[in-house]
């Protein structure tokens, strides 16, 4: 479709643009910025006066719960939630049931997602069969099926030899390996940061060393194998420092943090609020400060929603028995804006953390509005405030620690591949 987005403030970090510029879309692509291309006739005019126009968000961690966990969420509900949050590309971790370890499963997921005509889905394939940490998957076949990276859900393979072989194999083909650093033994049965709150509430702890031990291992193996490593959901100050050192050394490593950890700490658990039962666990004020600083200085490349819808019954349990996770895609943009405002980060920088940076970590050509690029656009009202109310969320998961928060920034239009898929 030919769309003219007029009068908005265009922010496109990849191209360093923060100015009032019109955007012209022809068919599925960005045709021009500023001046209409010759002969352009708009079929749809989006009046963006007073609004901000940016590339659609790229969310590197959004669980869609299909296949296997449709009682928690379905592709329909979560894809609708994505575009309501301005998310036009997302990558989903492989911890579905069955896990994304077979090309057929990945093709099916891609096909189902495409048929909904909403956000683009870039699956992260399983690094080992069944995520058991024993045998590596057919990574080349999975890549042909549509996987953009290979991961291992919430903990790397426990067997370091398997991990090293998997990295070597991935490096052979130039595939990306995405791992969340959490040592399985050191975090066993844990549900909260090993600190003051866990000590007080008697919650089984997850110490910071569970992160740093696993991170140290994967960084050393990445150095050895030369694999392109992406570290998922860093949660501690010590972890941020290790990433900083690895980048300084020149390792090929990128990193993301969840928006929950940018804003919350262990103290938010209060009196056993199961909405704050998250993986990784919320840590201390010091950790949060370091995560924010790492996100600001580029040590942490991207911020994600870590969208993990959980059904209500699974949260109406004592804290430790409750399912970990929170819904998030609809909150990602306002929470990034909140961080930017609190830390006085220019919007151009802040928005790069949810557009071009995650797109580069994922190795996909989205997240910018250069002429010729995919016409994936988010138009939002930076002044609009709204209260987070579970019933009003589109995601099937209604649980979020941000319930009741008043947030600023509301998506008005989402365009994917030249089609307006969301209007509010």
């Amino acid at each position, binding site marked *: 479709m030919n769309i003219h987005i007029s009068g908005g403030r265009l922010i496109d970090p990849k191209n360093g643009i923060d100015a009032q510029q019109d955007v012209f879309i022809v068919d599925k692509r960005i045709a021009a910025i500023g001046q209409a291309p010759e002969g352009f006739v708009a079929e749809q005019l989006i009046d963006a006066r007073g609004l901000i126009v940016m590339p659609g968000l790229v969310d590197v961690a959004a669980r869609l719960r299909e296949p296997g966990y449709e009682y928690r969420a379905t592709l329909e509900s979560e894809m609708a939630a994505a575009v309501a949050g301005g998310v036009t590309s997302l990558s989903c971790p492989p911890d579905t049931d069955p896990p994304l370890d077979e090309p057929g499963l990945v093709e099916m997921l891609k096909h189902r997602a495409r048929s909904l005509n909403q956000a683009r889905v870039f699956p992260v394939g399983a690094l080992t069969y069944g995520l058991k940490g024993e045998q590596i998957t057919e990574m080349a076949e999975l890549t042909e099926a549509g996987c953009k990276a290979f991961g291992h859900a919430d903990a790397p393979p426990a067997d370091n030899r398997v991990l090293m072989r998997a990295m070597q194999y991935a490096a052979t083909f130039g595939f990306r390996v995405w791992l969340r650093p959490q040592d399985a033994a050191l975090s066993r049965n844990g549900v909260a940061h090993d600190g003051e709150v866990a*000590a*007080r509430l008697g919650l089984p702890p997850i110490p910071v060393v569970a992160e740093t031990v696993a991170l140290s291992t994967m960084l050393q193996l990445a150095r050895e194998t030369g694999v392109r490593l992406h570290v998922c959901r860093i949660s501690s100050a010590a972890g941020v420092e290790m990433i900083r050192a690895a980048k300084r050394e020149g390792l090929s490593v990128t990193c993301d943090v969840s928006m929950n950890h940018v804003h919350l700490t262990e103290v938010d658990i209060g009196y056993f609020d199961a909405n704050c039962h998250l993986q990784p666990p919320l840590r201390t004020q010091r950790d949060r400060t370091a995560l924010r600083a790492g996100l600001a200085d580029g040590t942490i490349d991207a911020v994600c929603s870590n969208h993990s819808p959980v059904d209500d019954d699974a949260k109406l349990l004592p804290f430790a028995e409750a399912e970990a996770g929170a819904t998030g895609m609809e909150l990602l943009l306002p929470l990034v804006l909140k961080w930017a405002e609190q830390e006085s980060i220019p919007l151009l920088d802040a928005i790069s953390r949810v557009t071009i940076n995650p797109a580069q970590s994922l190795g996909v050509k989205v997240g910018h509005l250069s002429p010729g690029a995919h016409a994936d656009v988010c138009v939002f009202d930076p002044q609009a405030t709204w209260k987070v109310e579970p019933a009003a969320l589109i995601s099937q998961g209604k649980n979020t620690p941000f319930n009741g928060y008043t947030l600023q920034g509301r998506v008005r239009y989402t365009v994917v591949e030249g089609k307006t898929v969301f209007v509010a």
Partner: protein
Amino acid sequence: MNNPQLNQHGELQHLLSTEGLPVRIVRDILDRAATFLGEGHAEINKVPLLHGKSVFNIFFENSTRTRTTFEIAAKKLSADVVNLNIGSSSTSKGETLLDTVDNLCAMHADMFVVRHATSGAAHLIARHVAPGIHVINAGDGRHAHPTQALLDMYTIRHYKQEFHNLTVAIVGDVLHSRVARSQIHALTTLGVPEVRVIAPKTLLPSMVEKLGVRVFHSMEEGLKGVDVVMMLRLQNERMQGALLPSAQEYFKYYGLTRERLALAKPAAIVMHPGPMNRGVEIDSSVADGAQSVILPQVTFGIAIRMAVMSLLAGTST
């Protein structure tokens, strides 16, 4: 964040933890218990304070002793008592904790006494029930066991009168102990200037000092000059993991023997929440010795539970 134990008038609505319990309420509970025990008068056998009320003891984890003392306390207050030892049977049939509670609410429960293996279970129930229903936490996971701590405070006051001049040592498996956490909060609330914990590092939560205690790893140092020794139960299963090598080695270094008790003040008292493991955490000669107040603790426990229930029953709704 509102204190989930208090109503809008600042009265006790539920007893979930000794943390954040106002000192006036702690003192009120101790004073009430004293009247039930007939301090200065004859002991009271039966009063109609909970006449017509239903108290449901719901125990998702087995406990004969605690359940029995709650039952006796409720009956002395003339309540109708229903005991449910749910263990894990109901939940293994697929019923959730809150389903169970809803069913019991439909049977017109006025008060729940809850024990559960997971920290926070009593808070969850308290948040869920209708405003007129009271919840007493009889132990949730590693988190809290407030009536045990309150009966311990009663015991200390009974033998020591005051709190502001005491040094108290808590010995043993603090990491897994809901009793220890509740004791620490109760002692600091009542103004005990020095609360110590004594244990090997594997049995202490990290940052335990943030709870307001001094940490010792040696019995010889930690017991020096204390007025009260509060022993914790060491569960046998702790010997199986990587926490402790053996019961013998534990007793050798952390068992309370007569020699070690001699390091405390001469008039020091020895407490234990029971059930005891003789020869593991405590030597029989100490458990049965002159300084032991372990059996009076049990007697006081009934009065404390009567005090808590009667206080809750009198709370405006």
